[in-house]
């Protein structure tokens, strides 16, 4: 039993006390320090998983399932834990690096929500009990929604309310699925449920429960057609909040979707249901990609891009659920890598967009000519982050897309390959559009209105660091990554006493 799992969930909560009891400045610095400790803990978990080659687990309170709640870290969870810890830490540093008027409007609220996000994300990645996952999703929602409207403007409040209502709708659907599962099996532990489901073909009620839970998670993950809440919410939030929302908050429901379909549903059911999810993913990539092209505001463009990129993970489902071991492992690695590299690149792009908007005074694309001179490091960060989005080498996005394409072609899923290529083209179009405009010399009439270069070095450096992290992932070998397969499929022989 590894106590690190518990620490990952509970240590961020310890940072709440200084935020409530001390002055906001001191509390903020302690909060970022706690996020740093969280980074170290998740790194230690990943190292331990890699060294032992097995999943780590912990029975909270000493009660094993089905009575108690289990936490479990396999390779996939460990990768997600490290990714979210790093993005949260860098975003926290970004928020305190901007001193004075550039700091978040309500630092006590901002850092409380950031710490709560850290705890909620870690719980979502580690918990093995369907109801504990429900609590994690609720914690995530309550930490994310106030981030959207921290600045108090009407548009942001409206976006936050829509976000909350969609998220609550998703929660209720998910809970309904949990109720039905308990009514059928009397337990909510993933390992025990998987074992029971392997013994007999799933009943209609279970399929309905799985569909309900998936629909709920789709609403929370803004998968087409339930994506309407995402663009206003992510674009209206302050830059640090947008980065966190698009990079990591949206990944937790997607992770749970993967968990349910790969660990809970028996293989024939997964193979039957995967094309449906992939169809939604394809529609997300194509539809949201086209809408992103038509945007005039930079932050809205990036938000629509998030809605499109979520589709890539759903494309992974039919490829990874196939019976063919080699190509499904490749698709699994590709999908996971896409999740992680998208997190880094999207965080970089949102932070950079925030800095550009701050330096130029607005974020309308039509007026961004000359931004390359005013905020060069930010535009560079945006561009380098965009490399991963477009799928150009060297970047994590490129490796991920190549893996998915290879797997698709070898499994004769031509439509998936076409969608991946089309998505890459669309992403290239909207990223390059922004970069080209930013690097243009402004018209003489406009030149007087372009402010002098006064970019903040530390914050732009953080955005650049995130973009480089996405690029670094491109140096992974083009083969199934063994680390991500540790602990899969759910091997329940070692979990119960």
């Amino acid at each position, binding site marked *: 039993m590894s106590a690190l799992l518990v620490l990952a969930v509970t240590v961020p909560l310890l940072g709440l006390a200084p935020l409530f009891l001390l002055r906001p400045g001191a509390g903020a610095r302690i909060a970022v320090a706690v996020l740093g400790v969280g980074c170290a803990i998740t790194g230690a978990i990943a190292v331990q998983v890699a060294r032992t080659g097995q999943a780590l687990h912990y029975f909270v309170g000493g009660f094993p399932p089905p009575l108690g709640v289990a936490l479990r870290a396999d390779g996939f969870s460990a990768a997600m834990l490290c990714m979210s810890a790093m993005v949260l830490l860098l975003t926290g540093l970004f928020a305190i690096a901007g001193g004075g008027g550039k700091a978040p409007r309500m630092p006590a609220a901002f850092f409380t929500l950031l710490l709560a996000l850290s705890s909620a994300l870690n719980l979502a990645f580690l918990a093995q009990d369907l109801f504990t996952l429900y609590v994690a999703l609720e914690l995530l929602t309550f930490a994310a929604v106030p981030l959207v409207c921290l600045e108090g403007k009407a548009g942001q409040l409206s976006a936050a309310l829509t976000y909350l*209502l969609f998220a609550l709708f998703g929660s209720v659907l998910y809970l309904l699925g949990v*109720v039905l599962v308990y009514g059928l099996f009397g337990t909510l532990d993933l390992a025990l449920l998987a074992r029971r489901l392997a013994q007999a073909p799933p009943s209609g009620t279970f399929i309905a429960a799985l569909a309900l839970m998936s629909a709920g998670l789709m609403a929370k993950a803004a998968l087409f057609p339930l994506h309407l809440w995402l663009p206003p919410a992510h674009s209206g939030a302050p830059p640090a909040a947008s980065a966190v929302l698009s990079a990591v908050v949206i990944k937790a429901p997607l992770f749970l979707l993967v968990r349910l379909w790969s660990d809970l549903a028996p293989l024939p059911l997964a193979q039957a249901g995967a094309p449906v999810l992939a169809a939604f993913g394809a529609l997300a990539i194509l539809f949201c990609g086209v809408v992103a092209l038509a945007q005039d505001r930079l932050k809205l463009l990036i938000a629509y891009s998030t809605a499109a990129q979520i589709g890539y993970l759903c494309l992974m489902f039919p490829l990874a659920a196939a019976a063919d071991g080699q190509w499904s492992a490749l698709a699994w690695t590709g999908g996971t890598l896409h999740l992680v590299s998208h997190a880094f690149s999207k965080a970089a792009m949102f932070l950079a967009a925030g800095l550009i908007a701050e330096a130029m005074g607005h974020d309308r694309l039509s007026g961004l000519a000359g931004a390359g001179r005013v905020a060069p490091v930010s535009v560079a960060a945006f561009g380098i982050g965009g490399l991963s989005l477009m799928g150009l080498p060297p970047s994590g996005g490129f490796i991920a897309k190549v893996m998915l394409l290879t797997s698709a072609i070898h499994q004769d899923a031509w439509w998936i390959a076409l969608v991946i290529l089309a998505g890459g083209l669309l992403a290239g179009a909207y990223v390059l559009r922004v970069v080209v405009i930013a690097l243009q010399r402004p018209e003489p009439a406009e030149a007087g209105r372009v402010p002098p270069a006064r970019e903040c070095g530390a914050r732009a450096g953080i955005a650049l660091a995130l973009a480089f992290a996405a690029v670094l992932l491109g140096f992974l070998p083009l083969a199934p990554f063994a680390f991500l397969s540790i602990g899969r499929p759910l091997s329940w022989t070692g979990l119960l006493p």
Partner: protein
Amino acid sequence: MTGVTLFGLAGAILAGCGVYGLLSAGGGLGRILGFNVLGGGVFLIFGAVARRGAAAGFHADPVPQALVITGIVVAFCATALALALLVRLREVEAGPAPDDGKRETER
């Protein structure tokens, strides 16, 4: 047809009413009420599941009941936050109060 089954069916119908409320609501408050009715229906179904699991000297399976208590508190938090957002949104839309401008320039 036992009493427990009746309550389970009532829960199902309540969930349907809640969905109707969510879809046909005129404004945020109606949607929030619809969400509460839907949640209440789901909890009632869970309660029927709990009552069916009576064994070992207990009148009902305690685990679902504990989960429902957690769910009720979470639903209340959601209602409260949604209502606070709604009220603040209407306040901001109605126009800034006289001391708002002073507050913002003081920052």
